[in-house]
């Protein structure tokens, strides 16, 4: 039986803007099986970023229940959520968000060091993922010496090097040309399938949604 990577039950998220209370998520229910490649679409302000932030444990929710790989996350404080992120969740950002002073290798290795792996193990895993994303010879370069597509490959490598349960991707192809975007999507899907990692992707890009197992649509804090 394919276990759910993410289960959301009646998730509510409210923001306070002055005296006004804004409901960003209005009781979202969602179950995403392990290894699935899921896109979330929706207009700006629909709540898709909030949903991804909550799923990535970088934001909290007001009520409901969230199970990540079968474990309720509400019980964890900030420190506990940080530990879950470093072990089990990867992030891919629209603007890559690589650390400019770190080499490609260091950017990828940082996640592993946080996870507490030994230097030797880190080195081995980094080399493997560099081979897999096709950047074997570029490990000592810094991000400013790479093209946009190469930077996003580094970001993908950084997200997947720790073999996470879940990867949150925010518009990962928005800054890329069609050919590069296609390569990046293929790479994400390929690695995700190999590692059994679940992808939750916020996107407006049809090139991306065409490859997804499931496309969710979000409007006014409600999943359609």
């Amino acid at each position: 039986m394919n276990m759910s990577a993410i289960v959301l039950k009646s998730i509510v998220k409210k923001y306070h803007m002055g005296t006004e209370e804004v409901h960003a998520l209005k009781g979202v229910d969602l179950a995403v099986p392990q290894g699935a490649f899921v896109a979330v679409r929706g207009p700006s302000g629909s709540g898709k970023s909030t949903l991804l932030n909550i799923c990535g444990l970088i934001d909290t929710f007001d009520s409901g229940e969230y199970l990540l790989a079968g474990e309720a996350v509400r019980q964890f404080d900030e420190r506990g959520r940080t530990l879950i992120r470093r072990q089990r969740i990867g992030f891919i950002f629209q603007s890559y968000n690589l650390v400019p002073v770190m080499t490609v290798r260091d950017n990828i290795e940082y996640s592993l060091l946080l996870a507490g792996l030994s230097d030797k193990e880190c080195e081995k895993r980094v080399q493997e993922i560099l081979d897999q994303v096709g950047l074997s010879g570029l490990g000592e370069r810094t991000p400013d010496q790479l093209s946009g597509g190469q930077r996003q490959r580094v970001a993908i490598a950084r997200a997947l090097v720790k073999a996470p349960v879940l990867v949150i991707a925010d518009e990962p192809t928005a800054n890329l040309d069609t050919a590069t975007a296609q390569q990046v999507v293929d790479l994400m899907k390929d690695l995700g399938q190999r590692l059994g990692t679940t992808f939750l992707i916020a996107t407006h890009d049809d090139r991306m949604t065409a490859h997804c197992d499931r496309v969710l649509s979000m409007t006014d804090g409600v999943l359609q």
Partner: protein
Amino acid sequence: MNHFHLAWKNVRRNRRRSLVTILIAAVGCAAILVACGFALYTYDMLSDSAAREYGHITIAQKAFFEQEEETPMQFGMADDKVITAQLRSLPEVKEVLPRVSFSGLISNGDKSVIFLGTGADTALETKMRGPFLRILDGKVRAPQKNALPYVLLGVDLARSLGAKPGANLTLLTTTASTGGINAIDVEVSGIVTSGWSELDKRLVYTDLDAAQKLLMTDRVSTLSVYLGDIERVSETIQALSPDNVGKTLRPWWEQAFYYNSVKNLYNRIFGLLGFIIATLVLFSVINTLAMAVVERTREIGTLRALGAHPEEIVAQFVREGFLIGVVGVLAGNLLLWLVIAILPSLGLEMPPPPGRSEGYPLLVSASVNLFIITNLIIIILCTVAAWAVSRNAARKNIVEALGHV
């Protein structure tokens, strides 16, 4: 990945700004070291002057230190020769100088002036006082039989009396034995300056025998003990406890009132100056690192999303602050060595302090303790500044940090 290597890369990220911060830390460090080094030089000079004036250890009757004499030599020591011989046998004692302190009138026949006299081995006295009792005219002459006793006069006293080397003068004082008046004729052998204008108006040195003959006593006021090493004063005083010597022993610093006053004053002035400089360094580093933290807010959010704890983010900035501090103090120390190397060749002089007639060279002393303390303060300030500016940013909401533009 080496954390300090990464921190150094971050320091170099905005080179110009980091360079300015490092320069501020370096100049601050050098300024504290120069200011405190100048104070140390002054302390060294004053302590040397005081130790040469009083001896590293002064031995006298207890009452000599605590009371005013009603008659000359009332609290004098009669057994000085025994004690002197005992002291001279000690390896750490370099010299023992018996002194008779007295006062009276000095006259050239037309004019009489009050003097403050010291009877001692004048050759030894001038040798031990070194640069702090300079002979301006004439020379030190050993007493001779069938000749008048020789005196050294303070420069302003000599000017007042119109006396030059070879001139004959008369010393008048109250005798120790009867309290009557006694006088002797003396010959001026030299003109000296102590560097103190008020003292130079009254200063008379004569040999010990002449002073005792004038006072009609065989006592001495004090024994000034000079050691081979000024650092061994306390240890020697312990070895020469009053039980052994039968008299009271005072280290030079308990008699060096001017030294103690200047030290207290300078400690406050340079302490305040150091505090101000350190505060400026702190705020400069805070300013630079605060800008770096703001610029890197998004990066902080990314690292937090990847699973870094806030304290790990803070530690990164602290390492950067530490490196800025270390490089700053290294540059500051280099600056100080340049100042120390260049100052003597410039021949800069400080003006005479209040009460003195001579200035002194503007020089800077280096001290290992001063280096360690100043360097540690600057490094700690830079580290604390980094901690202070990064701790809130590291706890910022991750979503907000990621959205920072």
